[in-house]
């Protein structure tokens, strides 16, 4: 009898026995979704007008943190650039070579032209290389802190080198 009770107590597999709830060692999915829980959190805290606890103003910045936000900023920037390009393509009357010649005729000078190209090349380069780093993480590799820093420095060095090479030699 005790043997049976122990078996039942240690392994309850059905929700239909709620009195054994305290013995559930293996979790059953909750009644609410993650999204619902998050909305509840924000609704409650906004209603109570609670101030946000300081985070980026007090936490010590680290290379991985800065690389992460740079990845996001370059991503949003590139996406915005592509959307702006697509919008202009739909709205402006002339065709692409016409506008290129127009910009060229403004005689901006090689230094500024190079800088503008760098402004496009570096975000593309950085976002692509750091994206590869992200894909490695997604496969489960490279999570130790030394590896994160090492791969981070490699990404930074390579993106600077490749963007300068793209502007200088192409």
């Amino acid at each position, binding site marked *: 009898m005790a*043997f*049976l009770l*122990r*078996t*039942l107590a*240690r*392994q309850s*597999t*059905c*929700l*239909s*026995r709620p009195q054994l709830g305290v013995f559930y060692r*293996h979790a*059953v*999915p909750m009644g609410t979704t993650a999204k619902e829980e*998050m*909305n509840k959190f*924000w*609704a409650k805290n*906004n209603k109570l007008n609670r101030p946000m606890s300081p985070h980026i103003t007090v936490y010590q910045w680290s290379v991985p943190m800065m690389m992460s936000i740079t990845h*996001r900023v370059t*991503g*949003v920037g*590139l*996406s915005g650039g*592509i*959307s702006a*390009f*697509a*919008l*202009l*393509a*739909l709205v402006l009357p002339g*065709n*692409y*070579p016409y506008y*290129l010649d127009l*910009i*060229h005729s403004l005689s901006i000078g090689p230094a500024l*032209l190079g800088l503008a*190209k760098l402004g496009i090349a570096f975000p593309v380069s950085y976002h*692509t290389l750091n*994206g*590869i780093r992200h*894909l490695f993480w*997604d496969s489960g590799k490279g999570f130790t802190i030394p590896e994160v820093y090492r791969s981070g420095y490699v990404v930074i060095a390579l993106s600077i080198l490749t963007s300068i090479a*793209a502007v200088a030699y*192409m």
Partner: protein
Amino acid sequence: MAAIVRISSVCHRGVKLLFYRSALLARPLVGQQKDQDLSYLLTARIHGSSSLCAGSVSKAASLHWTGERVVSVLLLAMGPAAYLFPGPAIDYSLAAALTLHGHWGIGQVLTDYVHGEPKIKMANAGLFLLSTVTFAGLCYFNYNDVGICKAVALLWSK
């Protein structure tokens, strides 16, 4: 005994596990090690969503995650492909992959920073509109103008 019979009538899948467990408990010394190994197996079976009483969990989120990675890898491959084989096929593939990657990426940014049901809905609607216009614009450019590959080549030749 009666208790086990009752459980079996409600969750027939669980009973086999119960009997397995009780066989283990009858041999405590050997059972210890196997206990730990098997508890993982038992956990895996219990979490299976197919016949569990608690109901199933949607796979939408994990499929979305996988889709994001697949598009990222495809976009990565399109870089060298566009350099080596420029043309309309790559132009349209690039338009699709860039738009989708950007759409999902900004979607994640909105999820992180926008809170409250109505604001989330509005932001996502705006994003959907932006991505649609972006894709339309890129396709228009590919069809009526030089195309993405040629555009990059011309820009860089300045």
